[in-house]
């Protein structure tokens, strides 16, 4: 098991201590949080800043396919796109990773051989997480053994909502151990946690348990990443680093489809966590259709003409 940071040895010593700590975190006023997120959304990003932001956003994408219908062909196409998002312009950055189910990791790994694109795999009985711990750990080990560089796990929302914080905490630690060298992203499924107070608590719980990234959602529920829940998680990683010196990444996933949206998220990062997070080691977008919109905007900036869907590739 990974060691627990000394600062949190006491608060993670029992269910009740953990509960007291998490419930002692500052509350979140929803209206104020959403107003702040909306106000940052009015930043106007133009010309050189926009060009920079678009390339940065492309480089931060975990290009994702998580369908029952996924095939090796589909995954290979996705991998090719991750390496050369715009075949007509080789200056386009690669995406950060491709994100697939565990059984597709080997295919992805092979397709990405030699490229600077990571393979991320969802695990732990994604997306519901309703399986025994052994099964979740086996799922994780399989993915890592197949070559996954990153593991995207889901927390047990049922346990969290029932107040079983220690159970969630220990499960994250066990998955972290099973992940070995792979970086661990912990998915909260914010839409199911429902309240901002819960999202703040889950953020701290995940970070204390050793998450390398905290991630909003699976993309499989009605409400996924929003500016407000991402802002809240950025505040959490900022505060966690201030307190422990440990930097944790953030990944909003699901629902981010346009360049305009992506740039708003980058503004949130810039003005909340700061420039240390403006890097794909620390911030990711879990997305698929976003990439094509970024590419069309990139073409527009390069040529001055508006692009169209026929000028970017389908996956």
């Amino acid at each position, binding site marked *: 098991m990974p060691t627990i940071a000394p600062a949190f040895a006491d608060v993670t010593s029992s269910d009740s201590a953990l509960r007291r700590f998490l419930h002692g975190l500052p509350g979140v006023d929803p*209206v104020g949080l*959403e107003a702040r997120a909306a106000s940052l959304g009015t930043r106007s990003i133009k010309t050189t800043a926009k060009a920079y932001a678009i390339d940065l956003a492309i480089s931060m994408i975990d290009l994702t396919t998580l369908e029952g219908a996924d095939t090796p062909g589909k995954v290979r196409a996705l991998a090719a796109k991750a390496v050369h998002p715009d075949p007509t312009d080789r200056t386009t950055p690669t995406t950060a990773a491709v994100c697939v189910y565990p059984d597709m990791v080997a295919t992805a790994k092979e397709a990405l051989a030699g490229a600077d694109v990571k393979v991320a795999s969802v695990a732990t009985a994604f997306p519901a997480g309703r399986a025994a711990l052994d099964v979740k750990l086996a799922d994780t080990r399989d993915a890592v053994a197949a070559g996954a560089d990153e593991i995207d796990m889901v927390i047990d929302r049922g346990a969290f909502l029932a107040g079983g914080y220690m159970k969630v905490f220990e499960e994250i630690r066990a998955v972290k151990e099973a992940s070995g060298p792979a970086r661990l992203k912990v998915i909260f499924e914010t839409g199911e946690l*429902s*309240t901002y107070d*819960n999202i703040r608590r889950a953020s701290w719980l995940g970070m204390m348990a050793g998450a390398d990234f905290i991630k909003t959602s699976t993309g499989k529920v*009605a409400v996924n990443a*929003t500016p407000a*829940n991402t802002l809240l998680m950025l505040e959490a990683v900022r505060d966690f680093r201030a307190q422990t010196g440990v930097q944790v990444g953030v990944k909003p996933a699901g629902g981010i489809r346009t360049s305009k949206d992506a740039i708003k998220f980058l503004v949130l990062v810039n003005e909340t966590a700061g420039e240390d997070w403006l890097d794909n080691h620390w911030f990711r977008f879990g997305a698929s259709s976003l990439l094509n919109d970024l590419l069309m905007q990139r073409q527009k900036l390069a040529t001055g003409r508006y692009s169209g869907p026929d000028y970017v590739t389908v996956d």
Partner: protein
Amino acid sequence: MSESTRLSVFKTYKLYVGGKFPRSESGRVYEVTTATSAAGAGGKGKWLANAPLSSRKDARDAVVAARKAFGGWSGATAYNRGQILYRVAEMLEGRRGQFVREVGEAEGLSKSKAGAVVDAAIDRWVWYAGWTDKIGQVVGGANPVAGPYFNLSTPEPTGVVTVLAPQESSFLGLVSVIAPVIATGNTVVVVASERAPLPALSLGEVLATSDLPGGVVNVLSGRTAEISAPLAAHQDVNAIDLTGADAQLAKELEVAAADNLKRVLRPRAEDWTAEPGTDRLTSFLETKTVWHPTGSLGASGSAY
């Protein structure tokens, strides 16, 4: 001993300040007589009593007492204030005879006319007693702001109010200007009718036995112009009712009141027998508006 030979006991009229009955700090008094039109009075009115001639220091002491009482009185429940105002009416009813005599002498009224005045004054206490827990609903309420906020305006008492009681209507007028001010939680320093202060000083005795906390109403007698000047300029007085001032004095006092931006109620023609509206209640109320976010129940939707 027969009635005709018994010497009656005079009452020493005193101020009513902070729930106590002090003499004037000045040690001075002035002569109060019956109204010149009173039956049997030839030219100069008949001597009634020596009333305290309040000084600047009495005015100062009264403000201190009123300020001290403000927290408790404004913080009392509206229901409790209503009960106490009603208790004043009850106590007055029991001393009706005394007030009929005093008002008759003060205003030169026949016993039946004075009786009608006293009855009206008692009823006015009852009327305002019923207002204490209603005015907030009438003048306050929720404001439908365009955003995810709960927004509520409520009236609050202005604070310490100086009231120059009407000069002519020494009792009904007096009650009509005091009751609305304290009904809403203000405390009062009232300057009684200069010529006819006795009903006001006697009212102090009633208030002292009506569960009204000391200092909520403070009664001063003396020269209106002399007492009101320091009160109008006093930085710890929040409002002034100029009803008992003539035009010249009212203007001077309004100018002085501007120093700390007192709320000012200017003198105007009044019919004390008519049913009052709410404006004497609202003249000494502040509106406080409190906002609080409402938002959605959860973060999982843009339900707001």
